[in-house]
């Protein structure tokens, strides 16, 4: 965090000064490690073993926060008899289908609980939101055992599931010495409970694994057992990879979501009508019972007067998804000639995306490509200067892609808001005019729409209905006709259709077409016609009565609420767990919830309210069920639905790992992980002796993401001038690699060269009787620069593989490799040349199998039949 979020880390340092203990777990010893009280090196990708070890230790030593766990989590809930654990099935949960590499999750259900019929039909990696939240699940008849003794209750299953995750096992899998592990565990326990809370912070390092979602789940389970969720100083905080990443999933750039986490309608029976969509996406119980209000208001925001009750508000004409259309499958499709054009805005796949050599080759198969950026980045000039062009594998004459490079305004040259960590919307004004023809994204998209929409005015085709009826009337200002970002924000925040007045929050939203709202969770961000994210009043931050909340600093969704599920900051009776950690409580005299923040609970629902078995909507949430987005009002230690790879996180090896899975030798890697087994995406076989070194990636303070913004700035370029790899002295000595000298890193995808940073900050991992070396590399370098004093270097992603977490399709940045002294012999991905089996037979525009990933089950470590590197 000190490395990648130094400004945010200010507050960690302040906390440290006030006595907080800072613990850092990371394969790479970074600037964060240097200032932490305790640093634990870990073998990249073994996080679930460590977190499982913590869960085991917390339960084993009886250190969990009992009142919290019994009342606020599903620990007491009984799971149906058909469920079988990985401990029973040697690494698989019940319901695994080896043919498809997916689970039939019906056996994971609560006993007596039912799920909406659609749940079992979710397509791979495209599960709808209802499935993620547990909305759609009927929980009326579930049984529970508050004594936590029933062998089928979640708590007992959890205990059994992690029974082998002992400190010794943690040492053997993660390379973390037993004493360090125990110090970590005892620190967490000592700093949790009624009086204290512990915060867990992670960044993209956690998401970028074939088990990424489950790692974060495991962290959440630890936090729930310790009672650290919904309380001040607690939680699981996601540090974002760059500005407004949170915003780009709230109002998504993700293919499977609509704004506010409404599912993208799918090409299936139930999503052909608005009613069907609402039924499959909504829930009879809990907060998602309001789903229809949000969906209809979104359609009203898009289509205005054209959206009527009679035409289902235009829902039927929305495009529908038919499979995994995420980044990787889309690029593979481009590779196979199935994609005409691509907009690359604020991204640099030629450097920043996994298996960048493949990404660049895929770009070369497009007809046209629009790149909007501050500079001519690698993704815009791949056709004339890339490792592939340099090696002679291809040439500008052979690449037919027409590239349009559009200059973009930087963040100080445009207005708008960012949504960052903690869901905080912060507005920024424009500080100066962008140079030359550079324009904001908003300007670009707005004027593109204004040029495109008239071309569809006469169309009578159904698919063009959304274009013909899109409400696109944003006011413009200035000599370049810049659209008003505030007008967009107001639409996002919602307004009353008749009066045009801004709404005060999502409680105002209706399903009758009288309200419009671009993103229901942001509703109220323009309340009282005021740009709420623009507020800059910190208040009296030293006020012991909640001064640290600063509710008038920016605006947080939902409802300007700073801590989600904050009902959990009070005990079941509604009293603060302790005076020290007081946050939200039940005011008996006023008969309402009150406190320092906006209560995340129906404000007048008494703590003693008990939901009837047949209650629906929010009435089904009892007064001591803080997790109101879940159908049962409880935080889930066990996920009966929503995840594709198991109700409990389980240790699987990264699919490229030099070591065997000691817990589940027959399984190895995540059996549901996504890999794309193709000639041009070769993988290092698990436990392949040719690739004995673990590699992971990291970021430097001095550079930003794929580098164009920092590598071309002389002041930053001089601070970290060259691509390097951090390597321990033992491995360096073994391979004759010298500090400051050149080294080459090899995988099946290719090889890159880097300066060697031989340092004791990296230590070999002692894992039982085995020693494993790991190296770590930043990924900020690429082949092109736009300034004389800019710097270039090999791109780390030239050697990483396309793969994905089954839930998110996010890549795995832990892989195996080998290293040698000296520079590479050829261009970085030259060994892929000639592997393009699809080149000779472009299938044109037909749909074909590119977006259907292969299953890891076909390439587990017991199956070493994968093609070697000799081709």
């Amino acid at each position, binding site marked *: 965090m000190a490395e990648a979020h*130094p400004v945010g880390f*200010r507050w960690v340092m302040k906390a440290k000064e006030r006595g907080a203990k800072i613990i850092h777990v990371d394969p790479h010893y970074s600037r964060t490690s*240097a200032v932490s009280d305790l640093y634990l090196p870990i073998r990249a990708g073994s996080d679930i073993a460590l977190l499982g070890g913590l869960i085991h230790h917390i339960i084993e030593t009886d250190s969990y926060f009992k009142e919290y766990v019994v009342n606020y989590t599903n620990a007491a809930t009984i799971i149906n008899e058909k469920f079988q654990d990985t401990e029973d099935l040697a690494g698989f949960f019940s319901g695994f289908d080896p043919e498809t590499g997916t689970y039939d999750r019906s056996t994971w259900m609560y006993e007596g609980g039912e799920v909406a019929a659609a749940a079992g039909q979710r397509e791979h990696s495209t599960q709808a939101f209802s499935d993620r939240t547990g909305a759609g699940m009927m929980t009326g008849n579930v049984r529970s055992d508050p004594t936590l003794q029933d062998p089928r209750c979640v708590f007992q299953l959890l205990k059994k599931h992690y029974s082998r995750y002992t400190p010794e096992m943690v040492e053997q899998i993660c390379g973390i010495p037993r004493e360090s592990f125990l110090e970590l565990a005892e620190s967490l326990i000592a700093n949790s409970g009624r009086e204290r809370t512990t915060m867990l912070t992670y960044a993209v390092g956690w998401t970028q694994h074939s088990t990424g979602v489950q790692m974060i789940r495991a962290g959440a389970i630890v936090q729930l057992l310790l009672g650290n969720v919904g309380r001040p100083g607690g939680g699981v905080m996601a540090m974002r990879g760059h500005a407004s990443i949170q915003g780009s999933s709230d109002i998504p750039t993700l293919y499977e979501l609509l704004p506010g986490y409404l599912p993208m309608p799918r090409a299936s029976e139930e999503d052909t009508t608005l009613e069907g969509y609402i039924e499959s996406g909504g829930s009879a119980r809990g907060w998602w019972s309001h789903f229809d209000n949000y969906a209809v208001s979104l359609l009203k925001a898009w289509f205005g007067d054209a959206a009527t009750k009679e035409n289902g508000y235009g829902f039927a004409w929305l495009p529908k998804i038919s499979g995994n259309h995420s980044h990787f499958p889309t690029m593979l499709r481009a590779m196979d000639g199935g994609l005409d054009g691509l907009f690359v805005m604020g991204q640099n796949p030629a450097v920043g995306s996994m298996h960048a050599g493949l990404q660049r080759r895929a770009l070369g198969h497009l007809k046209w490509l629009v790149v909007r950026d501050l500079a001519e980045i690698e993704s815009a000039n791949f056709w004339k200067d890339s490792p592939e062009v340099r090696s002679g594998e291809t040439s500008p004459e052979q690449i037919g892609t027409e590239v349009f490079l559009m200059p973009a305004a930087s963040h100080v040259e445009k207005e708008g808001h960012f949504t960052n960590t903690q869901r905080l919307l912060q507005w920024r004004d424009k500080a100066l005019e962008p140079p030359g023809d550079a324009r904001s994204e908003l300007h670009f998209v707005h004027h593109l729409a204004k040029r495109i929409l008239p071309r569809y005015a006469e169309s009578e085709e159904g698919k063009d209905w959304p274009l013909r009826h899109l409400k696109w009337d944003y006011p413009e200002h200035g000599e370049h006709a810049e659209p008003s970002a505030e007008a967009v924000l107001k639409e996002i925040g919602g307004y009353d259709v008749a009066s045009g007045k801004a709404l005060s929050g999502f409680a105002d939203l209706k399903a009758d077409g009288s309200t419009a709202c671009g993103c229901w969770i942001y509703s109220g961000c323009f309340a009282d016609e005021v740009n709420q994210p623009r507020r800059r009043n910190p208040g009296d931050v030293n006020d012991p009565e909640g001064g640290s909340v600063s509710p008038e600093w920016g605006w947080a969704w939902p409802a300007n609420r700073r801590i989600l599920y904050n009902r959990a900051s009070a005990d079941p009776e509604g009293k603060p767990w302790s005076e020290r950690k007081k946050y939200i409580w039940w005011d008996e005299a006023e008969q309402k919830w009150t406190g320092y923040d906006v209560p995340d609970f129906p404000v007048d629902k008494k703590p003693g309210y008990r939901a009837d078995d047949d209650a629906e909507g929010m009435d089904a949430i009892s007064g001591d069920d803080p997790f109101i987005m879940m159908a049962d009002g409880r935080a889930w230690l066990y996920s009966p639905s929503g995840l594709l790879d198991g109700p409990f996180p389980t240790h699987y090896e990264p699919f490229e790992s030099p070591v065997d899975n000691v817990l589940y030798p027959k399984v190895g890697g995540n059996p549901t992980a996504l890999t794309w087994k193709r000639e041009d995406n070769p993988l290092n076989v698990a436990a392949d002796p040719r690739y004995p070194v673990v590699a992971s990636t990291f970021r430097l303070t001095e550079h930003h993401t794929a580098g164009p913004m920092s590598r071309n700035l002389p002041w930053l370029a001089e*601070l970290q001038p060259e691509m390097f790899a951090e390597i321990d002295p033992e491995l360096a*000595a073994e391979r004759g690699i010298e500090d*400051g000298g050149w080294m080459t890193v090899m995988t099946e995808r290719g090889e890159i060269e880097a*300066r060697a940073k031989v340092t*004791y900050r990296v*230590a070999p991992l002692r894992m039982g009787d085995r020693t494993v070396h790991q190296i770590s590399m930043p990924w900020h370098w690429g082949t092109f620069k736009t300034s004389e004093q800019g710097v270039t270097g090999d791109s780390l992603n030239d050697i990483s593989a396309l793969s994905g977490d089954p839930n998110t399709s996010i890549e795995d940045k832990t892989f195996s490799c080998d290293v040698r002294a000296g520079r590479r012999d050829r261009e970085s991905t030259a060994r892929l040349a000639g592997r393009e089996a699809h080149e000779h037979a472009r299938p044109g525009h037909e749909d074909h199998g590119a977006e259907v990933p292969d299953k890891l089950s076909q390439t587990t470590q017991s199956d070493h039949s994968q093609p070697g590197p000799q081709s």
Partner: protein
Amino acid sequence: MSAAASEVAIKREGAQRMGFFTDTTVCIGCKACEVACKQWNDLPADGSVFRKGGSYDHTGSLSAATWRHVRFVETVAPTPSRQEAARKALAEGGGGNVPRIPAAGYQLPSTEALAGAAGGVTDSEMVDLVAVAEQGDVTGMETLDRWVFMSDVCKHCTNAGCLDACPTGALVRTEFETVIVQPDICNGCGYCIPSCPFGVIDRDPYDGRAAKCTLCYDRLEDGLEPACAKACPTDSIQFGPWEELVKTAKGRVVELHERGFENAYIYGVDDHPDDQLAGNLGAFFLLTEPPERFGLPAHAESPIQENGPPATAAGLLSGALALAGAVASVVVAHRRAGRR
């Protein structure tokens, strides 16, 4: 402890001594100070090389175009055999500092190898044999002990060697008792460079004139804090009236001692004249490591203060000028000229 009143060349009602207190215990090594300084002062990137043994430091040292510089020091706990080797080297007459080998092996590098090491070897990369032999507490081998960062800057000394040596009056003391170079007066003679006991001031390779930190004199005139302090996310760099900063620093040391960090101390300010560095530093530091580890001298004084009558005293006692020797009289005469 302030500079002599007569030395202040720029008068301003109500101005007081301003300084930096750089607390290395909260530095996260982000280099924001280094970049903010270059941006505000419009200094060019002066080039860098990937430095052998340099940790994350590739700019190397303070220079004419690098007025804030963050040092990175990886300290390693030495092995018993390393300690033994140090003891043996001492017994054989070795002493002082010998260069460390950055990564592996116990051989000392040749002079040629050192000259070839990109960026050269700085003091921080030298091993104190005595310390290794006795405590095993400096750069050695085997395992990482700690990784520490320190943002270095011009010290704005009370007894400023650069100012004392400047024959043109280009170097002056401002109303904030900081020391700045007036580029339009500097003739590039370079006398200031060996006169700085900290190796701070340097000549611009392009125009030959001396350049160094001004404590953002232009910002101070407008009541703004210097760019580096403004950019520092963790308040490792604190700016303010010098007297207040000293109080803050002393309190901080006490606090750290109470928390068990008994090695915390102030570098550059001391109440006892004998223990002062250059008459106390306007920009001082809180360190938890020996100063040499960061390339800072354990003792420092303006050469003129050390080798001749104190320049400030000479300035006060004009009658003594004739006795003070040619150099001092030239210095003072020029400084007087500069003041007018």
